[in-house]
């Protein structure tokens, strides 16, 4: 664990891989040190955001270093099923990259359990990691200016669901009618860190 400075209100904890991130994030989320107002998990780091009126960075760093990571622990036990029409524009490219046919991409994508590791990019956009399988796909050489809401996409070992129309560089394999981010619903975001996800092929 390396604790890197991030100005006067935050610390960036750098770890060796995503598993370590999730283990530390689960522990900190379950037992937040006093004065910590937000936690931002990412691929290799957890940003710990403090309220400087309530604590000091030294106290928070000491608390983080004392925290025992909880491997295998999840922030929630919730499971979500996402119905997908596998008609994405990049499905053939993804299949070619993995050296299989498009049907096998669908079988693998629906055949494994995915877990929301962290969020970012847009409200409700979760980065999902697979329980098994190699999904190390590159981004598109040039990002699309408009990716429709509900697009199911792959890149860099992750899969994700675009919560709303936006630019995007991930490979599109399908779409869902399920609203993954809906402000009229509680909770608004379906794909929160720790939630397990199954993709189900529909036509």
């Amino acid at each position, binding site marked *: 664990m390396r604790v890197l400075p*991030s100005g006067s209100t935050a610390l960036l904890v750098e770890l060796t891989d995503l598993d370590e991130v999730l283990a530390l994030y689960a522990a900190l989320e379950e037992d937040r040190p006093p004065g910590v*107002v937000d936690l931002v*998990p990412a691929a290799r*780091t957890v940003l710990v955001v403090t309220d400087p009126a309530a604590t000091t960075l030294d106290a928070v760093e000491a608390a983080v270093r004392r925290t025992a990571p909880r491997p295998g622990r999840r922030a929630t036990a919730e499971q979500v099923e996402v119905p997908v029409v596998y008609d994405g524009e990049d499905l053939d490219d993804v299949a070619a990259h993995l050296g299989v046919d498009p049907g096998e991409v669908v079988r693998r994508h629906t055949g494994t359990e995915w877990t929301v590791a962290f969020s*970012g990019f847009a409200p409700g956009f979760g980065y999902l990691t697979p329980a098994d399988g190699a999904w190390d796909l590159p981004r598109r050489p040039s990002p699309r200016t408009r990716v429709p809401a509900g697009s199911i996409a792959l890149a860099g070992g992750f899969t994700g669901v675009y919560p709303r129309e936006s630019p995007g560089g991930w490979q599109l394999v399908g779409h869902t009618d399920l609203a993954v981010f809906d402000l009229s619903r509680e909770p*608004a975001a379906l794909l929160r860190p720790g939630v397990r996800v199954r993709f189900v092929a529909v036509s």
Partner: protein
Amino acid sequence: MSVLTVLAPGPLTTVQDLGRPGLAGIGVGRSGACDRASAALANRLVGNEPGAAVLEATLGGLVLRAEADLLVVTTGARCPGSAVHDAPGLLRAGTTLALGTPPAGLRTYLAVRGGVAVERVLGSRSTDLLAGLGPPALRAGDVLPVGPPTGAVPGIDVAPVPDPPGGEVTVRLLPGPRTDWLTAAAQDVLGSATWTVTAESNRVGLRLDGPRLERRVSDELPSEGLVRGALQVPPSGAPVLFLADAPVTGGYPVAGYVADDDVDRCGQLRPGQTLRLRR
């Protein structure tokens, strides 16, 4: 319910409060007033709770009509036409308050006793322009509800605070997580150069023009969390200083941070103004 009617929004006026801390887990940033100190002062002067919503006008231009007698105040950038700047006063029913263009500073905060009571989104009334959350920017004809008074009015005639300056501004520079991704020379340049705020700046951040910052490490950085004050160095070498509507994570190295207390003053910088970062 007493209300304010928007006759003209000026270049950009949004509703802002303390924002949405604690929601980074679902990819939602904090947002809130760009100049938190000025917004907090405005609320205090009309006896509001710290979390009450105010209006954030960018380069003045906001024209409001009171539909009831309302206690109001403006803070931050001083606009001609505001007789209530840093000095709360009654806006009588049927009368208008018209903010001219401030000679210095960028953002003016208008607080009304009781607070602007538009609907909350995810616990806050702030407009987050990057995430597309919260109420839309104000338009002519909007009718803004005003909440019930919550606290005592402090009875201050004029708050003795300095106006945002028009010239060069110096703020404190602190280490960032990837300071060492810059060459040693570039690290020195960051803290010694004169940076000019460009016109491509907004509530998300200030795009700064100055000497190109050379990177020592050119690896791809997996996205990592950041907060306001972060100085991010994209491949162009021209740094971005993030403000209230900063993204939750960023994929370019953060080479330094402006001290949080000083970020408020950065939120008052106009295009063309210069900024120095001092260690």
